[in-house]
């Protein structure tokens, strides 16, 4: 085929890069300010100000969402737009889509910043945003995807550099995770119930939650590392081959590791083993990536003394290595027994977010600013000061959380008298023992925030009065642009390497999963496939490498293969749990559905974000069982949409709270926790005593619950109202007898109704299953 080369000048769209970068810095400061506030609230409860929209339970989701989606999200988009255009030697496909992407994403963040403090929440971590915002996120993500893949389609560089692979994996996987975990049925414009419940919801949530870290906070930043680190060091990546292994291993392994967030819980044991196994396997690719990054600096280490960009990158990659070493360690069941529900987890995620994401962002911004505004960085000294201040801030934060977490873990699981009695029966002892560490954590956060103020000032001074410039490049546009020729979907799949791979996976699965003759046949077929493949290579002289090289130049089949890699992990984990027969999987206890008033109380519990500090899951551990009662069974939360197992215990577990204390105890505790529990850091909730319970929507909410499989009887609107009034009256009368006067229709009554229901379940003798195995 003849080619005609035309020399063309391409101007990159760096305006969008500048916009995302400025937005990222702005939202970083917002997210960190809120982070510092919520950290100090854990040391001084008075900073909750008795205002609903400033309480810890509502602000913590704002902090996490702002840090992930606003700060890192905008940073990621800036890095992707800048590097992709240069790596593929083409301007972003559509300026209009870029604008829609930028302004749509900012509108989503503003909507989140308004709705979360107002208490509009789905009650699932990092997935709190209400359903209309979820739809907006999906739409804007699709706009981004179209713009990205369209740019790849019109590229002038045939090969796809490894950074582009990481971006493709991010786009595909985040879309899949976000959509599945946000499947809900609306009950109003601002409220919905997730379609999954109990253990299913727990599994889907942490499949999403863990992979939000993997594919939103890690893979795009790795792509950024593979582009910007060689640029800053002015030398190619240490090993391109290692980067390929890093990519495929990471993409294939990460998706399986979600269940490590649910170790020692009522999640099926095989899933816990799966999560732990794949988490441990993550050590290899993660450290491969870290070493590849650090070794790229070989011969350039002397530059670290003076170049703040390289300082940030080197420290960021090191933090990546440390966090990805710590993560698998915490996924070992025995270690997790100590670390889970404690501040250790908080320290771990902050070493990742502040150290890896924050420092990579800072390095990238300091590198980009002089190029985007065509002027030297205002102050290198200030950038260096930012580095040291931020580094000391992270170390103070993480070290204090480690000490606090280990202290909490040890105290709450400690027993005496041959393991029959708790050494520290009062939960509050663990809270007061670690209070001083909360001050150190807040100090570390303030130092890190101060560093970002310096960055904002430095970049503002660099850009102020300077001319914003767009990069340009001269390229020879050739026809056809694809040296190896386009493959198309058909060419990507109907070829020997893919067919042999699929056959090998199919027969291996059959060999392991089937029994007897069928298993033997699969083994025979597997051996035959290997022999056939060897013969094919030998006699046909097949150069299958050509297929892979063509794949690297064809983004569509490459994207589909990446999707297949992540789909397999998701399907193997989620499908068996979703199709599990509920009747056989309740472990002897089946939750009693909430009454309408209790359901209203549960919605208040979710609105106030109680799950941020209280779990509802008693683990299969001695300390948990002695403190809270018999360990939680799968059946005890099957009707919980959403599940509320939690991930952190700043306060005690509430799985069996019902009936533990009289109504009046909860009444006083919610008004002023310190009246009941001296030293508590829980906020006061005075508004619950004045706001009426929202019961108008209950008929609709119950109808949705019925559709989700909760066995509510058909009830008319009047019957529901009567049921609510009756239960309110009983609780209010009981409170009055105990000396606490409150109107029956106030929210505190509904919340007490819910709290008193926690842990109530029918004892069921399960039908004899066909095959059961004793485990543990």
């Amino acid at each position: 085929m003849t080619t005609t080369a035309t020399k063309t000048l391409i101007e990159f769209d760096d305006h969008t890069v500048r916009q995302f970068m400025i937005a990222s810095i702005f939202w970083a400061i917002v997210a960190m300010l809120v982070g510092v506030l919520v950290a100090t609230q854990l040391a001084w409860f008075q900073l909750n100000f008795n205002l609903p929209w400033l309480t810890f339970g509502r602000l913590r989701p704002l902090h996490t969402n702002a840090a992930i989606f606003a700060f890192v999200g905008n940073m990621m988009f800036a890095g992707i737009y800048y590097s992709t255009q240069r790596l593929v030697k083409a301007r972003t496909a559509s300026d209009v889509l870029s604008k829609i992407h930028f302004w749509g994403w900012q509108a989503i963040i503003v909507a989140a910043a308004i709705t979360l403090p107002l208490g509009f929440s789905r009650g699932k971590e990092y997935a709190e945003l209400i359903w209309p915002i979820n739809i907006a996120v999906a739409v804007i993500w699709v706009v981004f995807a179209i713009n990205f893949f369209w740019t790849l389609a019109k590229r002038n560089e045939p090969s796809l550099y490894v950074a582009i692979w990481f971006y493709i994996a991010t786009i595909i996987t985040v879309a899949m995770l976000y959509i599945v975990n946000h499947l809900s049925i609306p009950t109003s414009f601002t409220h919905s119930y997730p379609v999954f419940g109990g253990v299913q919801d727990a599994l889907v949530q942490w499949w999403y939650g863990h992979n939000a870290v993997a594919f939103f906070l890690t893979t795009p930043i790795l792509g950024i590392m593979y582009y910007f680190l060689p640029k800053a060091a002015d030398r190619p990546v240490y090993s391109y081959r290692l980067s390929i292994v890093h990519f495929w291993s990471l993409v294939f392994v990460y998706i399986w590791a979600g269940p490590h967030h649910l170790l020692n819980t009522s999640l099926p044991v095989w899933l816990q083993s799966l999560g732990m196994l794949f988490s441990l396997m993550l050590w290899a690719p993660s450290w491969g990536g870290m070493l590849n990054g650090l070794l790229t600096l070989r011969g350039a280490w002397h530059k670290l003394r003076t170049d703040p960009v390289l300082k940030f990158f080197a420290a960021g990659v090191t933090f990546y290595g440390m966090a990805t070493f710590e993560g698998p360690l915490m996924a070992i069941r025995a270690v997790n027994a100590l670390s889970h529900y404690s501040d250790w987890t908080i320290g771990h995620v902050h070493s990742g977010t502040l150290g890896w994401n924050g420092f990579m962002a800072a390095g990238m911004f300091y590198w980009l600013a002089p190029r985007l505004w065509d002027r030297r960085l205002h102050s290198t000294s200030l950038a260096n000061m930012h580095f040291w201040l931020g580094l000391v801030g992270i170390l103070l934060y993480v070290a204090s959380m480690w000490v606090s977490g280990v202290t909490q873990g040890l105290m709450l699981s400690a027993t005496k008298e041959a393991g029959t009695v708790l050494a520290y029966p009062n939960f509050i002892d663990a809270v007061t023992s670690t209070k001083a560490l909360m001050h150190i954590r807040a100090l570390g956060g303030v130092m890190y925030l101060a560093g970002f103020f310096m960055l904002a000032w430095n970049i503002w001074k660099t850009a102020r009065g300077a001319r914003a410039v767009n990069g340009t490049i001269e390229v020879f546009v050739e026809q056809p642009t694809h040296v190896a020729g386009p493959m198309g979907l058909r060419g990507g799949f109907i070829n020997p390497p893919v067919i042999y791979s699929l056959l090998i996976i199919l027969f291996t699965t059959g060999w392991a999963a089937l029994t007897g003759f069928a298993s033997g046949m699969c083994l025979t077929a597997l051996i035959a496939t290997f022999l056939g493949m060897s013969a094919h290579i030998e006699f046909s002289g097949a150069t299958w490498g050509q297929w892979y090289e063509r794949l690297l130049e064809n983004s569509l089949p490459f994207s589909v293969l990446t999707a297949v890699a992540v789909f397999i992990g998701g399907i193997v984990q989620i499908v068996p749990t979703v199709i599990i027969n509920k009747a056989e999987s309740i472990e002897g206890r089946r939750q009693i559905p909430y009454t309408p008033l209790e359901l209203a109380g549960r919605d208040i519990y979710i609105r106030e974000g109680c799950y941020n500090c209280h779990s509802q899951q008693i683990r299969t551990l001695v300390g948990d069982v002695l403190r809270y009662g018999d360990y939680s069974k799968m059946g005890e939360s099957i009707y919980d949409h959403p599940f509320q197992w939690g991930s952190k215990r700043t306060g005690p577990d509430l799985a069996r709270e019902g009936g533990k204390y009289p109504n009046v105890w909860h009444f006083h505790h919610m008004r002023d926790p310190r009246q009941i529990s001296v030293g508590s850091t829980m906020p006061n909730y005075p508004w619950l005593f004045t706001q009426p319970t929202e019961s108008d929507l209950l008929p609709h909410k119950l109808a949705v619950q019925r559709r989700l499989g909760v066995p509510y009887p058909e009830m008319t609107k009047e019957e529901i109202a009567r049921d609510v009034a009756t239960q309110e009256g009983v609780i209010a009368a009981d409170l009055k007898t105990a000396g606490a006067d409150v109107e029956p229709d106030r929210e505190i009554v509904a919340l007490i109704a819910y709290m008193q229901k926690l842990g109530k379940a029918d004892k069921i003798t399960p039908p004899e299953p066909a095959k059961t195995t004793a485990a543990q």
Partner: protein
Amino acid sequence: MFQRILVEDWQRTLTMISFAIFGIVFLLMLVRVLRLPREQVRHLENLPLQNDHDEKSR
């Protein structure tokens, strides 16, 4: 005290199948990567650096 039921045999094999699938994918990828032509590796690893010579600021 902590006896757990409900684990069915076919689910247990999923852990092993998962491991096997990963092993196969990993090995196939490793073989492929090790056989990647040296010139192509050099071209790919220099992609981020190429623009430094061509790129101009306006």
